[in-house]
């Protein structure tokens, strides 16, 4: 470990004033050994890929500077705007249902006084989270196929008699929103429930003595205090939702391309890289998505006030 220590010492510039020391803190070169592997991974799989994507997005296949050519090319692709539209519509449905229903369910579960019941309910809501990715999509393929579905009667009563009718293009955004809600809502309900538990019982008590009913307490006390968490959920889900990939990819495969394999932006980037061997175009789309995710995340870390950055 001596090399790490030496490197560490070399990076310490002598003329800077030392950072303020808290009692018990130790400023030691050993710290650099502790963080070395993590920093290495951060550089290799966090920072370098981002920089390389930036490089590719602004160069041509031959390595020359391309300016914005890659971006204008992918944006001019006839598949680009529809993909943006699909993802946007899906996001709208998903975020609205997530914010409304998660908050509502967390509030309801929180009013339950029997601990075993509220615990069981949270487990039931949370359990589908175990089925992430391909598994949950596969499960929903069954549920959406009227011939095999446990809710075939419900589907038929909606006028949907065959799988192909169910997965018509217009139905896809709500379908993806339902799948995402099914797999992801429980985790958020649990988090909201935790946040509700953190509200001081005295505050609720005082409001009750002042004559506030359940609805008023929810509306005037609990919701305002949950606001940070709701915006956290909204921002994280917005960032995750722009990445839509597994759901349309598997549905495309299951439907013999009734659902196109360039339905979402990430799929389009994948097509650029793997079907067209156009890594520069793929990098341009990835970079657009990455910038959205980074901006949302950085905004929330620096302004959201939910995370400890001391």
């Amino acid at each position, binding site marked *: 470990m001596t090399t790490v220590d030496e490197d560490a010492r070399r990076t310490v510039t002598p003329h800077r004033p030392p950072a303020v020391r808290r009692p018990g803190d130790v400023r030691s070169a050993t710290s650099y050994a502790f*963080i070395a592997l993590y920093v290495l991974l951060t550089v290799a799989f966090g920072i370098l890929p981002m920089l390389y994507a930036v490089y590719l997005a602004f160069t041509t296949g031959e390595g020359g500077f391309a300016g914005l050519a890659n971006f204008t090319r992918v944006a001019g692709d006839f598949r680009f705007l529809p993909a943006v539209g699909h993802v946007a519509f899906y996001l709208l449905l998903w975020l609205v249902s997530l914010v409304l229903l998660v908050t509502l369910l967390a509030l309801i579960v929180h009013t339950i006084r029997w601990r075993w019941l509220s615990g069981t309910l949270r487990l039931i809501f949370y*359990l589908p989270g175990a089925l992430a990715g391909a598994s949950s999509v596969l499960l929903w393929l069954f549920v959406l196929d009227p011939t095999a579905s446990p809710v075939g009667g419900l589907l038929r009563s909606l006028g949907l008699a065959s799988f192909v009718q169910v997965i018509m293009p217009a139905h896809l955004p709500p379908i993806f929103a339902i799948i995402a809600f099914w797999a992801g809502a429980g985790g958020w309900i649990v988090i909201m429930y935790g946040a509700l538990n953190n509200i001081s019982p005295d505050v609720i008590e005082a409001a009750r003595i002042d004559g506030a009913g359940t609805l008023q307490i929810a509306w005037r006390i609990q919701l305002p205090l949950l606001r940070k968490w709701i915006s956290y959920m909204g921002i994280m889900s917005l960032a995750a939702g722009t990445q839509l990939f597994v759901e349309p990819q598997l549905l495309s495969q299951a439907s013999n391309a009734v659902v196109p394999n360039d339905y979402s932006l990430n799929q389009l980037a994948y097509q650029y890289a793997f079907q067209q061997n156009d890594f520069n175009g793929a*990098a341009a789309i990835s970079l657009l998505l990455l910038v959205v995710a980074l901006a949302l995340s950085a905004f929330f870390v620096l302004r959201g006030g939910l995370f400890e950055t001391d």
Partner: protein
Amino acid sequence: MTTGQVRVAGSRRAAVSGWSGRAIAGVATTVFVLFFLIPILWLLLASTKNARELIVGHPFAPGSAGAFADNWDQLFGFGDGEVTTWIGNSALYATGALVITLIASIPAGYAMALTRFRFRRLLLILTLVVMLIPNTALVLPIFLELNTIGLIGSPLSVILPMSFFPFGVYLTYIYFSTSIPRDLLAAARVDGCGEFQVFAKVALPLAAPIVALVAFFSFVQSWNNFFLPFVMLPSSDGYPIQVGLTSLLASTPAFNPSSAGTQSIQLPTLALATVISVLPVLIVFLFAQRFLIAGMTAGGTKE
């Protein structure tokens, strides 16, 4: 909705009062319990039926042990036992990533919480920012990067990126900054411990809960990861089970009529494959529920 007057002064919760309020809350809860539960129950039952029972039988009637055994044989006979290979791959990738994640993130979280060094705050903010971006956002950039150094197709192309787990570092950081008294470490230093000894002999033995928590989250995330291995591993020998499911799906005539042939997969077999693909994670979820929930709510600490 009628909200009744103050009734239970001793209650410390916002209890729903009034029968109509209770009824609406009850109905809403029941509807969502069914929504979350029915697909899972149905899937478990579907894996015990034969193809005919699945279509014509009652959706919630159980099948038979014989049908389950047939599905099992069909699944594990698929492509000369490819499914076994895929499960093995999943285990290899998830455990490999777990080991490296722990080696990288526990000391890093410790150092960030309890020692000072240059760029500490920068590293912390960077960790948070990367932790909050969806991990799919970096998949194609990482592919483009690893492609230039020819690592595509190697198990390392998934294990190494999965080992970069900022969430684990942040959880460790929170744990050490809130649960370990600084005086304890100072005392060890006074007693002549070097920095490595302080970490190994004082901090690490107290860190068992956080090591387990990071291990769980890392394992679950790696096991469920689809996009990364889908992009990195072109050959089906290297698929983890999540990606293998797409091969099975492509061979299911019910969804993909063109695939009817020697290697076709029946619907109940596909259901069984789905169950098996989530089994390790489902078990973790069921038995470590409290634990996982504690970790999720520890993510944000400021109130």
